């Protein structure tokens, strides 16, 4: 398997707040990587840097062997990087179906009936099809999060960035989510998942990266990483 994403010495700060501190890691095609870290560690900011919503102060990002550090967000998405927003950002004046259609037409580059078909398939897979005609602005928070996932999948991503999508789910819903993410992964999509619901995360990911103050404090296979003292120390103060 070849390398899909390489982050090299990435740095970013907002004044005194450092959200990425000389961050380096890489992700292999088809892999599922989990990201852990306390509140404010810079997890969402890392996604923002990967999608192009934020510009790095220093360092580079390579995707599919190409340097995308200065590539605009829209093009990165077209090239295969999709994300869900931790705080959902639905297109509130559109229906659930239309939200997915934006992704299918603009990012996946599909047209006409093929774009519509793709959006329908994604809604079927994510269990949102019965709400296809609902206004996105009137959805419950849980459905907004489902829509985040559906809209990201509608872009036909090769790298899917998921930002805290398991919070607030019942145990049964959580199991459904776990199996659907596994299904997405086995279909060939690489996944990076930020999640505070650790047991859900550990059910899916093959590797963990732990961040604190924008710095990578641990990385490796889930069990040994969770057992590390540095990780325990960070998490003791949190939850």
């Amino acid at each position, binding site marked *: 398997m070849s390398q899909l994403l390489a982050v090299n010495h990435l740095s970013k700060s907002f004044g005194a707040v450092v959200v990425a501190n000389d961050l380096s890691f890489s992700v292999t095609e088809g892999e599922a990587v989990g990201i852990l870290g306390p509140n404010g560690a810079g997890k969402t900011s890392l996604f923002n840097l990967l999608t*192009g919503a934020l510009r790095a102060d220093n360092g580079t990002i390579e995707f599919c062997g190409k340097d995308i550090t200065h590539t605009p967000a829209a093009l990165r998405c077209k090239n295969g990087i999709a994300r869900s927003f931790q705080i959902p950002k*639905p*297109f*509130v004046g559109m229906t659930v179906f*239309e939200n997915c259609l*934006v*992704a299918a037409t*603009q990012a996946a580059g599909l047209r006409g009936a093929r774009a519509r078909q793709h959006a329908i398939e994604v809604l079927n897979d994510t269990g949102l*099809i019965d709400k296809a005609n609902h206004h996105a602005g009137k959805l419950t928070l849980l459905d907004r999060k489902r829509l985040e996932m559906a809209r990201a999948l509608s*872009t036909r991503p090769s790298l899917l960035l998921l930002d805290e999508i398991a919070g607030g789910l019942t145990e049964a819903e959580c199991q459904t989510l776990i199996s659907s993410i596994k299904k997405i992964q086995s279909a060939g999509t690489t996944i990076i998942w930020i999640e505070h619901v650790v047991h859900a995360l550990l059910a899916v990911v093959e590797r963990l990266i732990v961040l604190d103050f924008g710095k990578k404090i641990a990385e490796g296979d889930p069990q040994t990483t969770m057992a590390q003292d540095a990780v325990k120390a960070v998490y003791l103060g949190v939850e």
Partner: protein
Amino acid sequence: MNTRVTRSSRFSNGALAVLALLVVVLLTAPWWAGRAELRLFGEIYLYLSLACLWNLMAGYAGLVSVGQQAYVGFGGYMLFALTIYAGIHPVAAIIAGGLLAAAISIPVATLIFRLNGAYFAIGTWVVAEVFRLSFAQVSALGGGSGSSLPVAIVKSLADSRSARESLSYYLAIGSLILVFAAIYFLLRSNRGIALTAIRDNESAAAELGVNVWRTKLEIYVVTSALTAIIGGLIFLQKLRISPEAAFSVNDWTAFVIFIVVIGGIGTLEGPIIGTIIFFLLRETLADFGTTYLMILGLVAIIVMIKAPKGLWGLISQRYDLEIFPLRYRVQQSATTEQG
């Protein structure tokens, strides 16, 4: 389950049929309407066109401009300049004015697109003032006091006055149909989905593959060109131009914003409703002088408080209606049905 995606509804089909009939009736207006009504109708069509264009920019592309009078005036002045000094036919001059406006709007856009929100609005206004002051310097076009369209040029449109009035009416309704159809088909296309996404959440749109900057630029250039064409037609009706009239922020922007805001910004139906209300108010309150402007302001404030999405927003929300079908509806039917 069998899934189908439709766009039109029974309501939209019916409404469009009624609207088409109305357009046919209006196309015959030169046969049944008086001179004053024809002029009024022409003015209504041109205002509606301006409102549709401003709505496309502000309501969809998020470009809240208070300076579109720059292009109204530019189009008007190009009509005078190109007919008087280049000797071309007025209709050709108006179209050429549109193309020149498109060319000018590109450097203007690279300048003002650096500004955001209120600063962008102020930027557009400054640009319009620069246009006004520049044209006031051109003595060949009458400088600050303006000029009239020479009789020979007016006559080149048609010999008789009534024929000219019919022509001017058809140019107005024709360009309204053109502008409206262009916007409608744009919004129905893939480009339109991108624009609607920008309308709802610009940053999310960018991260979903929408090239926000380019889309905005395209919208700015196209609306500027079409606004200049409408400007040319406005001053073909007036036959006289001056910097004050051509670049009036009141006439070509404030009233247009009023129309779009009370009708419903970010909808195709809004500008139509807004234009009808604006002209109803204007025709009934014209005798009140400045009080009329205060009433307009009052109406705008009440509508903004009671119906932030305008009157059409209020109606469409309550009854889930759409005259111009832009929506998609997913329809599921069980495949196990008989037959």
